[in-house]
């Protein structure tokens, strides 16, 4: 069991080694390149703030996803729930675009969470009452939400003074997340992520619901024999997951972005799936995993700036982390044995 929480570290070490080999093959000094990748981005306060800024949405979404994944519900559409949450939250922010007031930001955040929740309920209800496959439905809904956002920022919600550019007005300061330090972009949204971590730990390990979720994840049949209400649980985990993704979306638009446009998320909803598994679906593991994955984004930028290595190395690193994690899991749970069987023996 200790090994189970240890393999993510093995995966990260293997990724760093693999990255070094790739840099070496590309003709760079691997030590120097790895330094630019993993150290330079966070070598000052600004970089550290950017790391936390980038990790915040990943952590929030992954926490939500951990509820679904732990209970064998495969919500792949967090990106859509993020987008829809941002649309609803952004809509409220736009309603108040020329007003000030302490109550505006809480309203916007709440609207974002509800938006994400409603959007996640669609695959959940279809799964519980119509037996549809939640992987397909939640994934397809990502495109629905992105097209809806496209329509809104080009059409009815576009900035009347913005020369038809596909973006809304800037939100008023009352709908913006307060900055924690002057000159840095890290904002109060990080407290939402930390609260989600605490709350999810409490729900998963200290409540009856958490117990149900874990049992269903380990064995659906056991859960049925125990008389758990499976349908309600499915709805609840999807709602939690959607609300977290919606919060992540609203955190981005009220934090660093400040308006709605078409590029509110560089696929955080999909990357968070890697984060959730790298963190072993454990709330505190997810904090750690979100920081590691956030660093792969920042490192890709600095290595391109300093060494002109293509920025797509970031995706290569994320891919390697997932690959090595799955590979070490395989070796952990299965014993590799070389069998010497004759052909007809295999049939039995």
């Amino acid at each position, binding site marked *: 069991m200790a090994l189970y929480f240890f393999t993510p570290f093995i995966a990260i070490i293997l990724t760093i080694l693999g990255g070094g080999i790739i840099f070496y093959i590309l003709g760079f000094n691997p030590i120097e390149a790895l330094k630019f990748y993993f150290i330079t981005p966070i070598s000052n306060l600004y970089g550290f703030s950017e790391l936390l800024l980038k990790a915040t949405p990943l952590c929030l979404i992954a926490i939500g996803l951990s509820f679904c994944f732990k209970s064998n519900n495969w919500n792949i559409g967090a990106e859509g729930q993020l987008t829809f949450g941002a649309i609803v939250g952004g809509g409220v922010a736009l309603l108040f675009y020329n007003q000030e007031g302490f109550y505006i930001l809480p309203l916007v955040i709440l609207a974002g969470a509800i938006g994400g929740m409603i959007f996640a309920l669609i695959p959940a209800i279809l799964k519980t009452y119509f037996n549809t496959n939640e992987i397909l439905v939640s994934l397809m809904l990502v495109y629905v939400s992105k097209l809806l956002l496209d329509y809104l920022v080009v059409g009815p919600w576009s900035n009347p003074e913005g020369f*038809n550019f596909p973006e809304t007005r800037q939100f008023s300061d009352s709908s913006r997340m307060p900055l924690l330090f002057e000159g840095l972009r890290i904002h109060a949204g990080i407290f939402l992520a930390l609260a989600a971590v605490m709350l999810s730990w409490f729900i998963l390990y200290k409540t009856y619901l958490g117990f149900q979720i874990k049992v269903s994840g380990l064995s659906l049949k056991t859960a049925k024999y125990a008389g758990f209400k499976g349908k309600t649980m499915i709805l609840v985990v999807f709602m939690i997951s959607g609300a977290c993704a919606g919060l992540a979306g609203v955190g981005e638009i009220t934090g660093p972005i400040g308006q709605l446009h078409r590029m509110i998320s560089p696929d955080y909803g999909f990357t968070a799936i890697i984060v959730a598994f790298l963190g072993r679906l454990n709330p505190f593991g997810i904090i750690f995993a979100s920081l590691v994955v956030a660093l792969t984004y920042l490192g890709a*930028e600095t290595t391109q700036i300093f060494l002109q290595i293509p920025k797509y190395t970031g995706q290569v690193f994320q891919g390697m982390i997932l690959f090595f994690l799955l590979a070490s899991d395989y070796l952990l749970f299965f014993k590799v044995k070389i069998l010497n069987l004759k052909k007809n023996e295999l049939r039995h």
Partner: protein
Amino acid sequence: MYKNFFKYLISAIFLLGFSVNSNADFKVGFVYVGPTGDHGWTFQHHEGRNAVEAAGIKTTFVESVPEGADAERVIRQLAQSGHDLIFTTSFGYMDPTNKVAKDFPNVKFEHATGYKREHSNVSTYSARFYEGRTLLGHIAGKMTKTNTIGYIASFPIPEVIRGINAMTLAAQKVNPNIKTKIVWVFTWYDPGKEAEAAQALIDQGADVIMQHTDSTAPVQTAEKAGVWSFGQASDMQRFAPKSILTSIIDDWAPYYVERAIAARDGTWNQQDTWHGLKEGMVAMGPYNSAMGADLVNEVEQLQKDLASGKVHSFTGPIYDQKGNILVAEGKVADDGMLAGMSVYVKGVEGDIPK
């Protein structure tokens, strides 16, 4: 007190960024919205960067930077890591560029296609692509048999509407029966959507296709269907050698070299640049021999006249779709009107999406 502490700490970090700057290691940074191999918009900016490098100035680029929350960090990192001049080459970088410029008064910023210059170290630049559209319109008007021109448009911003209007006006001048059909794809780069749009226009009878999007899919679709097309942003001839009549080429190289040298030598000033055929920021690709020598001569003459200012793309009388006069007879549209253009001229079909 803590607030001040952080303020000083942050200023110290910023100062650290400046301290590495000196004339000996003058560096120019570029931020691209797409990959350098898109064969359109980013490809041409990258060619401009290559020219700066060839002029003996060190450069750095970051490609595929999303126009969201990431842009500000990339621009700031370039400023912090000792770049003295930074070109941000997409409209979506407008606010991040101005935000970073505020914190780095000694670094110069050049933002492409935007209109905000909030600090004295921010310049903006763009090209008069519409002059190229006038030439395309002239060619299209002469080459079409169905009198229908298909136009694949990205977003209903003034730049795109200006191109549609300039093309339509020029085509009407040589062929009064011209109709312009438009498909809005709401993307700058999506080969699948662009190809579908081209096919839809061809199915509606268009026999000349032009695009205000960046991929080579429309010209390839036109080649397959056997209709005419025009390349966009870079010379796309090799992707559709039979179909392409010519290409509008964005040539940023002379501007980038000039501005980089000015910044290095300390003569850089804030300005809003809008260059066209005259300065060479807009150039034309090779003409297809199918056009015939007469038409090529006409177009080359028109190109000279546009460059010298003898002919203007928007010369009155110009009417909107309802027949109201936009530009009176004998007048030309001023830059203010061009910059905010948001109505179609007569002869364009459909409505601007709202």
